[in-house]
């Protein structure tokens, strides 16, 4: 699935990428091709085992391809579905930790950490520890931590799956706000089609370790889940899976 845009604007490209983890165990990814432009919000949607996580691992460099070509930026950060905060550090310390390699003063690191927490409206949680946070707060901290290193691409791995509806709605707004204000490229993995249509500009439907369809979602923000066109898009994606 090639994008016709200017290649200077392209930030990720997969060309006929396949991945085999174990010989004889079958492919984990089969001949996947797509490209993502800088500043886009795209999603990969599909059932468990469809290859979404393998694509993400290839993008962040956690694993290597078996065949094909990958163009990806170096500064890609993934926010996991499961909590990846260090329990012995406070919220602020968890954010500051990722700035360890930055050649800036301690005071500047603290300032950056506070700024990113304020972006997600959780600055008041700076002195709390991870076990004192709710699921939504933990995700916010993980996102704030990711933003602290100014990533080119932010990958969200089913970030809202463990949250209640109200918290999800609030986080959706925060994510969209952060995306627009920082001109980030965001890739979201989800098996919730409604969430994909609510947030993304494009969706890659994955099944049987391949991309089965690339679907444009050209609706303006904020989107209305009760809109007829919204519902039709959900059906379109569901049919592609």
């Amino acid at each position, binding site marked *: 699935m090639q994008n016709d845009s200017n290649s200077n604007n392209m930030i990720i490209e997969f060309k006929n990428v396949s991945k085999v983890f174990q010989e004889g165990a079958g492919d984990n990814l089969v001949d996947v091709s797509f490209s993502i432009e800088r500043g886009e919000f795209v999603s990969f949607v599909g059932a468990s085992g469809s290859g979404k996580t393998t694509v993400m691992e290839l993008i962040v460099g956690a694993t290597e391809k078996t065949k094909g070509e990958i163009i990806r930026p170096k500064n890609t950060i993934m926010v996991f579905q499961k909590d*990846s905060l260090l329990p012995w550090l406070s919220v602020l310390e968890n954010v500051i930790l990722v700035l*360890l390699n930055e050649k800036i003063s301690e005071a500047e690191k603290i300032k950056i950490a506070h700024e990113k927490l304020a972006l997600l409206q959780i600055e008041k949680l700076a002195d709390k520890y991870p076990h004192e946070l709710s699921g939504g707060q933990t995700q916010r901290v993980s996102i704030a931590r990711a933003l602290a290193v100014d990533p080119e691409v932010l990958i969200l791995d089913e970030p809202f799956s463990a949250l209640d509806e109200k918290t999800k709605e609030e986080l959706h707004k925060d994510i969209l706000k952060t995306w627009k204000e920082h001109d980030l490229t965001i890739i979201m993995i989800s098996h919730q089609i409604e969430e994909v249509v609510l947030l993304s500009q494009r969706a890659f439907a994955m099944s049987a370790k391949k991309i089965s369809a690339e679907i444009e979602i050209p609706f303006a923000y904020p989107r209305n889940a009760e809109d007829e066109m919204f519902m039709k898009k959900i059906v379109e994606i569901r049919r592609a899976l």
Partner: protein
Amino acid sequence: MKQSYFFNKKESYLSAVQVPARFRFYFTVAVPAMIILVTLGVLRIAGELPMLDYREADIHTAVVATLATLARLMIAYVLAIVVAIPLALLAEKSNAKRFLLPVYDIAQSIPILIFFPFIALAFVKLGFSEGAAIFILFIAMLWKLVFSIIFGLNSLPNEIKQTAQMYNITGVNYLTKILLPAIIPQLTIGSIFAFADGWNFVIVAEVLHAYIPNGVVANDLFGVGSTMVGAASAGNETLFVYSLIAVVSMVIVLNLSVWQRLLAYAERFKF
């Protein structure tokens, strides 16, 4: 004191490490008390020790002997930790992991007491009898610590490892900021078991005269193990009972003032 976020406004070392109030007893009382007790024990071991007459010795002997044994255990424990951490990290990190773990398994299964007579004789000939005791206690403690640390390393969630990789937290930073704190709960449990094994071995470790040719009681190391054996030989039942009470009391005090508090403190490092 260096000003950074990690240091509270109050200039005390307790605030500096952000120790919750309920753990401050540990740092203000238990640890200094342990240091004082162990120092007393070390001085007792290191000083000129008069030949004990087990027929006459009393409760004072039992108490000081227990402190001397504790000092020996602490020295062996520190050495065991220093060796255990790199051994465990090597087994986890290296390509020889498949080879190393079985080697460690076999090593811990070897009954070290079989070799103790040779080890004791070697150290006595070198003029460093204490080395024999500390060596046997070190070996007794080592493998419990190694395997507890390996278990702790295996328990590190994949998300944490991937997060560290993504944010380029590698090398010494990965070791000090992530790995070492993450193993604290398992290391604490391993330390409790290691100390228990150490107490089990003190009689063997201190009663050296049983293992060396023409050995006499004067070859023994002063400690609660040798005191109990000496008291039993001399028929001083009172001293034997005092020694037993001293050991049990020491184990209880250690448990309440050190291990239980460490276990509670280690909770904050659990995922």
